[in-house]
């Protein structure tokens, strides 16, 4: 039975298998594929949720819904690889190591922030534990299928990730203490490193204990009672990190603490997929490129904390040019709908090309999440995740009009406006005086 389950699991994760995809034909739009150039006037046919054909004058198969997007621009659905939406809760602060908690347990499919996100063209998110602890919890990647159940939103092919955090949030440096209250350990950057090292040592010992038990179990004539070690969910997760079954996503700000964490990863042999925020990344672009560790950053939000005081807007462009894999994130349920505006700034601040700028919010985060085989660009065989804009997506005057996930429309501005008009007619709210609704 177990073998069959494993086989099915492998089948699901290795193909572009989709829970239930839709059929759709978009006609006459300008297609920005991100990886294969721009098609000035083209069609995209999606069947069973996958992009089946890209080209000009595609005839729709019978029964397939056709949407005319003349004059509009189509990009791959935007991917926000660092957010906290769609969750009932962000941090477990009762302990400094909470690897046992899993975002999977607190999914909230009715979070209206999901709607905010799709109104801005976002189709996939990586939603995380917060940055209150040096070792946080297990994160999850979702497709924003607004209106569907939480389980249907899970993106199973994404890498399982574990949140780590360094710096001021973890040491609670900006928190006022009540009289008599003592700071939680670790309260300094040196404590943070020591703490993570200690927890990972515990995980190593835990693994050794289980190995020893499994060895002893094999001995038939052992004349002593044998009790298995206590299964500790927290250490199981850290052990999985050491075994390579999970990758680390680490929130860091300063260049120095980032380098220390990289050293830890070598000490214990685990993989870091991405550093989060890291405004000082430009100072260690060389190291990041050499280690092949990506970064997921803000475009220009800075100076809100001391450790963010040396963040510069040219950083994403500069790091890209130095060979670092850069993605832009929002970490905000408001900014999530303006990621395309942020991407455009990388052209102004640093001189990235249009495709490079678009990749910051599409292909690059997909690579960082391990799902670039399925999403992140408009190519035949990938998921039909698209965002349609009325002006060029990198223009300040643009607006997202349609958001499509696996061939189904989840956000349609026109339909939304109609619905709102109907709702306002029926609403007990006082009617507005003047101007349109």
């Amino acid at each position, binding site marked *: 039975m177990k073998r069959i389950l494993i086989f099915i699991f492998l089948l699901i994760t290795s193909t572009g298998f989709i829970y239930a995809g839709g059929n759709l034909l978009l006609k006459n739009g300008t297609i920005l594929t991100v990886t294969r150039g721009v098609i000035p006037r083209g069609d995209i046919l999606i069947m069973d949720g996958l992009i089946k054909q890209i080209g000009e004058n595609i005839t729709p198969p019978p029964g397939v819904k056709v949407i005319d997007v003349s004059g509009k621009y189509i990009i791959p659905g935007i991917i926000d690889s660092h957010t906290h939406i769609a969750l009932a809760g962000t941090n477990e602060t009762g302990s400094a190591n909470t690897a046992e908690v899993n975002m999977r347990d607190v999914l909230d499919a009715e979070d*209206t*922030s999901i*709607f*905010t996100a799709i*109104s801005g063209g976002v189709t996939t998110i990586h939603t995380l534990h917060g940055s209150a602890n040096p070792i946080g919890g297990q994160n999850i990647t979702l497709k924003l299928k607004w209106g569907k159940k939480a389980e249907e939103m899970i993106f199973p092919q994404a890498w399982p990730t574990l949140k780590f955090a360094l710096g*001021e949030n973890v040491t609670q440096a*900006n928190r006022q203490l009540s009289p008599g209250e003592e700071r939680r350990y670790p309260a300094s950057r040196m404590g943070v490193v020591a703490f993570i090292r200690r927890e990972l040592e515990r995980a190593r010992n835990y693994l050794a204990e289980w190995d020893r038990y499994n060895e002893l179990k094999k001995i038939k004539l052992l004349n002593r009672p044998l009790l298995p070690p206590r299964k500790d969910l927290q250490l199981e997760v850290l052990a999985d990190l050491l075994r390579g079954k999970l990758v680390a996503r680490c929130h860091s700000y300063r260049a120095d603490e980032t380098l220390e964490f990289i050293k830890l990863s070598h000490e214990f042999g685990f993989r870091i997929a991405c550093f989060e925020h890291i405004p000082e990344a*430009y*100072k260690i*672009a*060389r190291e990041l490129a050499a280690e092949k560790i990506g970064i997921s950053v803000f475009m*220009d*939000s*800075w*100076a*809100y*904390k*001391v450790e*963010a*005081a*040396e963040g*510069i*807007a*040219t950083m994403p462009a*500069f790091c890209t040019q*130095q060979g670092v894999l850069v993605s832009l994130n929002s970490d905000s*349920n*408001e*900014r999530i*709908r*303006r990621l395309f*505006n942020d991407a*455009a*700034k990388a*052209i*102004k*601040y640093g001189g990235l090309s249009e495709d490079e700028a678009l990749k910051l919010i599409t292909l690059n985060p997909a690579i960082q999440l391990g799902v670039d085989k399925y999403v992140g660009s408009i190519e035949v065989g990938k998921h039909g995740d698209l965002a349609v804009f009325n*002006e060029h997506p*990198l*223009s*300040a*005057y*643009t*607006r997202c009009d349609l958001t499509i996930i696996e061939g189904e429309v989840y956000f349609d501005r026109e339909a*939304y406006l109609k619905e*709102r008009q109907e*709702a306002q007619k029926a*609403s007990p*709210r*006082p009617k*507005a*005086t*003047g*101007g*349109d609704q």
Partner: protein
Amino acid sequence: MRIQKIWPLFLILSLSILSGLARAEEIVAITNVRIVPVVGNDIEKGTIIIRGEKIENIGPDIVIPQGAKIINGQGLTAYPGLIDGYSQLGLSEIGSVQATIDFRETGRINPQVLATEALRPDSMHIPVTRSNGITAALVAPSGGLISGRSGLIQLYGWTPSEMVIKAPVAMHVELPAARAGFRRQANQPSEGSRLLDEVRELLDQARWYEKRKIAASKNKLIPFPEFDEKLEALIPVIHGELPLMISVHSASDIRSAIKFVQEQKVRAIFYGVSQGWMVAREIAQAGIPVIFASLHQLPPSWEDGYDALYRNPGVLRQAGVKIAFSSSSASLAKELPYHAAKAAAFGLDKREALKAVTIYPAEIFGVDQLMGSLEKDKLANIVLAEGDILELRTVIRHVFIRGQEIDLSSIYTEYLEKYKKRVEKK
């Protein structure tokens, strides 16, 4: 000294100090440049002559004076320097470090404080902001019910007096905002009218106070009232010399505020106005200009619609309200043009969007004879951009403030240069 008589003096004083900044009567000619003066028609290819601090001449065919420094504007567009309708520039460095925050005084009633008296010319946010084409900004206090008075500064100067263009500009009153975000319902009963009652009470006290002072000055038998700095500060408001900038958000609060302003006969500007689209005609009829807070916020309730704050400016402008945009920030003050563009994406006419960051704020603050458009005799606050100044991708090539070309370096460029060196020496 009576405070209400001071501000024109301030204006004259600062102008004379500032003129010391510009080198004596240097002449600059920007040639071959596309000109968007904002007032009047665009000029596809023209010349701008700057003499000293002012625009001496501007037009398609102009004779370039002898000895002019030529700047070739080929491929560039000239715009008036942008004006931020509300910011904390120079009053805030790092958000979480209290020692760097100077726009919020303790207590609820502080009309006596003046934001420009806390201005830090060396703020790292100022070079970042002006290198994106913003040349002037309102710097305002916040917090409490009456936060204090704001002033208008130019984003260039070594000392506060070199930077202040006009102070005070307005007296700030803050009514609470409904809690943002869809989760919380905007059902909380509005505190607005109750708070306005408090303000009414204070204005009445100021009226009494002034009457008493006048009576005392005429009649030696009547003693002067005890000096009250707060009531002194409110006197220009009751005379209509200093406008009230009222931070107001919900539709019902806006209505209460309109009634309040009309009955008190004070000048007013509204700030924020998140539900203005619901009462646009009333605001227009009252003739009150509106400065929007940062558009990068969530609307107060789901029923308003996800795009409520984005389409708000378009609706108000169409109803005839004079509008301006603001960044409501220090570290993100460079975002000003993109708030305007966002509103244009959701219905505001593009030209009006540009006016709302140039001539309209100048008019609202009463400095439109000096700035807000590229016209003869106005100050040479000019931005040369490689395209539409409201566009995200546009690179700014030159910025002039009072005819002085500004160095566009900032912490962004300095740190980049420093660390470029690290990767260059391989």
